[in-house]
């Protein structure tokens, strides 16, 4: 049967069919939408609701409206945490994504020996749980006997205290970079693989070298993939928890209970026993992350269209 015949046959039954088909579509969608509402939307709303109460150890619970949310915006500890994460984002994310992009481009250029093995080597940390990665790096950062310290001592230098207040943020950036370069690299690499050979060949005929091809053809072509990794990085950075939480056990004076906003929300809920204010912090943090992601997207677009 030809396609036009199909279309004709279809035409007659369109209305009843369309109804049946959208019923099927809804049927297929419903399970996802249900858990989506239950696990994403309801908790979001619930945290907003909880944040409208204040509970103290003495005196119990009272309704305070938006007061908690408002005080989050002037909460020194919260703002310091956000500030720290902003520094983290500005410094670490470009390094991580730059490294990922470089490796992806290098592998895609076909100029690397044992490319497949090196690709897997770079990707493997992604399969390592953040908890394990942090425990491991925690040992590697030890000021006395870790391989890093041993290497410094071997050449007669004083090893830096990677867990001191000056360096802890950088140490954390290193852990996150180690964990996620591979993941971002794979997304970019996969995108590079779908660039049609013809456009690359055209560039080659024009006499463009590898670097120029990368800059003028490949990077623009995978702009969307890069944007995706950037958005994931915004989300990942601002809700950082595992790394500071576990490192605080070996650097307890450097990483306080409000080192990151998420750590703050956690200790508010479980140490200070103030789930209402914790909900307010979580709510504001969520809104903040969405705003930053949105701004990042907007700027990314503007850059492209300019």
């Amino acid at each position: 049967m030809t396609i036009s015949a199909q279309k004709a046959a279809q035409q007659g039954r369109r209305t009843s069919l369309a109804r049946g088909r959208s019923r099927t579509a809804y049927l297929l969608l419903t399970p996802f939408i249900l858990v989506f509402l239950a696990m994403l939307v309801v908790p979001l709303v619930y945290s907003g609701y909880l944040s409208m109460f204040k509970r103290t150890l003495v005196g119990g619970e009272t309704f305070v409206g938006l007061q908690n949310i408002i005080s989050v915006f002037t909460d020194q500890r919260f703002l310091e945490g956000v500030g720290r994460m902003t520094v983290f984002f500005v410094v670490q994310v470009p390094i991580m994504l730059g490294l990922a992009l470089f490796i992806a481009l290098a592998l895609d250029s076909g100029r690397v020996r044992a490319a497949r093995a090196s690709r897997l080597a770079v990707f493997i940390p992604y399969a390592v749980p953040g908890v394990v990665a942090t425990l491991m790096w925690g040992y590697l950062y030890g000021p006395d006997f870790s391989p890093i310290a041993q290497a410094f001592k071997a050449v007669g230098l004083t090893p830096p205290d990677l867990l001191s207040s000056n360096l802890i943020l950088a140490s954390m950036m290193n852990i996150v970079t180690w964990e996620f370069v591979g993941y971002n690299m794979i997304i970019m690499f996969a995108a590079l693989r779908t660039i049609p050979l013809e456009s690359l060949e055209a560039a080659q005929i024009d006499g463009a070298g590898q670097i120029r091809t990368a800059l003028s053809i490949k990077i623009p072509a995978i702009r969307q993939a890069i944007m995706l990794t950037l958005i994931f990085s915004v989300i990942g950075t601002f809700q950082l928890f595992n790394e500071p939480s576990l490192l605080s056990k070996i650097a307890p004076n450097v990483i306080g209970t409000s080192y990151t906003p998420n750590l703050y929300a956690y200790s508010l809920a479980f140490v200070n026993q103030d789930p209402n204010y914790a909900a307010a912090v979580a709510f504001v943090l969520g809104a903040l992350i969405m705003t930053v992601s949105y701004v990042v997207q907007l700027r990314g677009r503007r850059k492209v269209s300019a």
Partner: protein
Amino acid sequence: MSFFSTETARKSKSLSDVRRRKRTSKLTTVLVWACAAYFLLPLLWLAISSTKSNSDLFSTFGFAFGNEFALFDNIASVFTFQDGVFLRWVGNTVLYAGTSALIATALATAAGYAFAKYDFGGKAAIFAVVLGSIMIPLTALALPTYLMFSGMGLTNTPWAVILPSVVSPFGVFLMRVYATDSVPDQVIEAARIDGSSELSIFFRFGVPLMAPGMVTVFLFALVATWNNYFLPLIMLSDSALYPLTVGLAQWQSMSAAGGGSQALFSTVITGSFISIVPLIVVFLYLQKFWQSGLAAGSVKE
């Protein structure tokens, strides 16, 4: 918007590989392998350290073997400490990650297919909401979810970890792109003319054609739950329900707590090493699937 079929992508890849292989560059190779070393060395350290006793751990060079080869002692202590709870943690991790990844994949496949292959009222709006929700910070949601669950008596059950992990908006997005690409409209039309119901078309033609995409979504959902720490940390109180991440962190903190505790470093290190092996194996084993799945999804937004 231009879609490249996965077919083209794969073909151009193999063509270019053949051509490209001829001219490797020393500089690029060295740079990339230097990066690879950065990613591998810590893991090498972990592997070597898991063969050391507690005292060798702190007295011998990090990348050399210790005075005694204690790997088997360490493995034994990992699996026997606290009545062998580690094995339970492995089981729990497999259960939580496997179950939620399966459900997440099923939900994302059905929803992605619906978005790709049907027109229905509110489609654009619903998809926009789902896509936008990728930006919701899940960790920040874990706290309200916990408070909600504790009101419902769901905390300290496997469901408390599984339920929040089955929502994967990114999975839906990926499956929509993948379904658009890999399930030709002609196949669906032909099946309709043969009198197949819509649902049976989905199961008989849609699902098999979307399989590589499903593997991708499954793997990434699996990793997300396998590696999750925050959610099980706040949801679970019974150590018999812990997944590996929370259990290992607890062992580590036992070494760092006051009275009545013990130094467990070699046990923690060996346990950590054991815990990362399964995922690495799964990734290596299934790499063909997830890489092609990602290739289809990553460019098209």
